[in-house]
């Protein structure tokens, strides 16, 4: 019995020693996610590895708690502080609760940024949004216009009438809709992010606007319901469905032709950009200040606002050409 335990201890020791001495001189960047085992974040980690390979001399520590709790992330942050990593790029479970732990990390000389889901300003150097409201507002109408060269009537199927994000995006969309010739927004209806209600609202749109050419749904629930309603009415290909959706849920509707394209953030690019920004800040090659630019490798540069956040890029467009690669991811 004793022999077995000491043997086990020895192998454990040997293994971990080898592990810890592997990359002594590298810059270590920790990509902390809301929870492990989520496709979206696994994809972000892929992007981070891509950035690390491009930069060279960078070790990515991809980590996070088992479930999406602030307490779990604090334990992870504490262990990263203890390891004296060079940078932490975090998608936060709680924008307030992580602040004390991240402040401590910064006091000990660690570069801290947040991405995807932000931390309150005093807990990070900068925050990277996947996109921005004007970019999203423009993209949702652009996707409709691209497939309607002669223009036509389009309608919006939103979440609830009080949904902050959707209202801002629709407002931004209405600002730029004049740039797309012949596109008429004839109605905005609300499906409350419920599948059945969104489905009925989409049916209502089709019957009350016989000339309808496209439905824009800037919500992942609404876009699926609209695509289903169009398919069930036998109008797939005639009435275009677009907006914001998840590749895994939309793959079938892209295949059937109900939706030609839709958009959402690209998690791979997000992980790539977060890593590039962390590297540049930790190396001192860029500073996080209002109006400043920070390089993001192949994605160009991000410009910071007064509240020290920035938008990565246009929402990424998914269509028949790439949907199959992404439907497995998220």
């Amino acid at each position: 019995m004793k022999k077995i335990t000491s043997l086990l201890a020895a192998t454990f020791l040997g293994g971990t020693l080898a592990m810890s001495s592997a990359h002594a001189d590298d810059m270590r960047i920790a990509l902390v996610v809301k929870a492990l085992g989520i496709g979206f974040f696994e994809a972000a980690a892929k992007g981070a590895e891509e950035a690390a390979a491009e930069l060279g001399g960078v070790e990515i520590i991809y980590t996070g708690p088992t479930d999406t709790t602030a307490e779990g992330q604090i334990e992870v942050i504490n262990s990263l502080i203890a390891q004296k990593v060079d940078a932490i790029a975090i998608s936060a479970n709680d924008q307030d609760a992580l602040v004390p732990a991240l402040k401590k990390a910064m006091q000990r000389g660690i570069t801290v940024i947040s991405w995807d889901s932000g931390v309150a300003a005093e807990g990070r150097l900068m925050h990277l949004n996947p996109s921005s409201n004007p970019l999203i507002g423009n993209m949702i109408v652009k996707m409709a216009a691209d497939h309607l060269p002669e223009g036509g009537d389009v309608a919006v199927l939103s979440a609830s009438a009080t949904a902050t994000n959707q209202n801002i995006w629709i407002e931004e969309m209405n600002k730029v809709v004049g740039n797309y010739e012949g596109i008429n927004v004839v109605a905005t209806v609300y499906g409350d992010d419920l599948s059945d209600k969104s489905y009925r609202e989409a049916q209502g749109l089709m019957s009350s606007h016989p000339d309808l050419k496209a439905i824009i749904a800037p919500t992942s629930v609404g876009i699926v319901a609209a695509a289903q309603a169009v398919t069930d009415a036998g109008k797939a290909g005639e009435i275009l469905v677009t907006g914001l959706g998840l590749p895994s849920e939309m793959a079938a509707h892209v295949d059937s032709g109900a939706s030609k394209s839709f958009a959402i953030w690209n998690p791979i690019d997000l992980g790539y950009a977060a890593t590039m920004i962390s590297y540049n800040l930790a190396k001192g090659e860029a500073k996080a200040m209002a109006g400043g630019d920070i390089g993001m490798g192949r994605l160009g540069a991000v410009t910071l606002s007064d509240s020290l956040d920035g938008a990565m890029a246009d929402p990424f467009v998914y269509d028949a050409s790439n949907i199959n690669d992404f439907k497995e991811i998220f």
Partner: protein
Amino acid sequence: MSRVNAIDKKAIPNRLRNPVSRVLRSWEFLLFTVGVLIFLLNTQASPYFLDPWNLSDATFNFTEKAMIAFAMALVIISGEIDLSVASIIALVSTCMGFAVQLGFDTPALVLIALAVGAACGAFNGLLVAGLGLPSIVVTIGTLSLFRGIAYIVLGDQAYSGYPESFAFFGQGYVWWVITFEIVLFAIIAILFYVLLHRTSFGRSTMAIGNNPTAALFSGIRVSRVKFILFVLTGIMSAVAAICLTSRLGSTRPSIAVGWELEIVTMVVLGGVNILGGSGTIPGVVIAAIVMGMVTFGLGLLNVPGIVMSIFIGLLLIGVIALPIVIQRTKQRVAR
């Protein structure tokens, strides 16, 4: 003939083992050895482990949970269980956050927290001790109830803006790397040691866990003891809630989700019989430190959380199975 003798020898030994041998064979010693082994492994596995500040940070992995674990140990020893503790934390924290919005300061917040915790415990206690309902059913119910109230009040919002002085509980240092929490942990451990091992209340708790009917007929006021134990657990959950809320600096209804299982694991790993009747406070102390060191050590190696849970599970099964396996082997050898 020889077989009968062997059994006789086991049943009535000629003399008791000497005290040293008894300590060496105790559960606490086994756990302590495991703890030392894990400590040594950690120092070898990561160059960052043996740093006073890092070890100080690591104590946060277990202090708050251990505070509740002491009270939980007594509840489990009495033959009951309280699964609502993490939800009590959520409700207490929400009430404190609400009080902050009304402009209360730190002393008032602490009093409110303790009162709410005690009330939650009393509610559990009334249902279990007063109505005689099974505690596992009652506290699964209140697990949803207490956190449900927190969700109704807060929804997807958060309370923050706690006063500066409130931060001391979860972020303050008493001296050098010694945190306020670790001092509080030590004081609470001593109090519970005295309560369980040096008072008649503690003996009553053990007696109830061994045989409630016999305890009742021996003149022990069984339901009163049980009621007090649940109130005590509620109060300790409130103390943990104060520390955790102070450390986070904000309240969300999802605070401390899943802690009840980690706390029960801590208690069982500490050698407390899950069926009631026996257990010690030193055992729980060691178990808390061992669990804290394991999660921190694995964290330093960036082992994913899910592997950590597997490791804790294996540790639990291993430490519980080991003495039984050893005894079985001995019996077989004796035959």
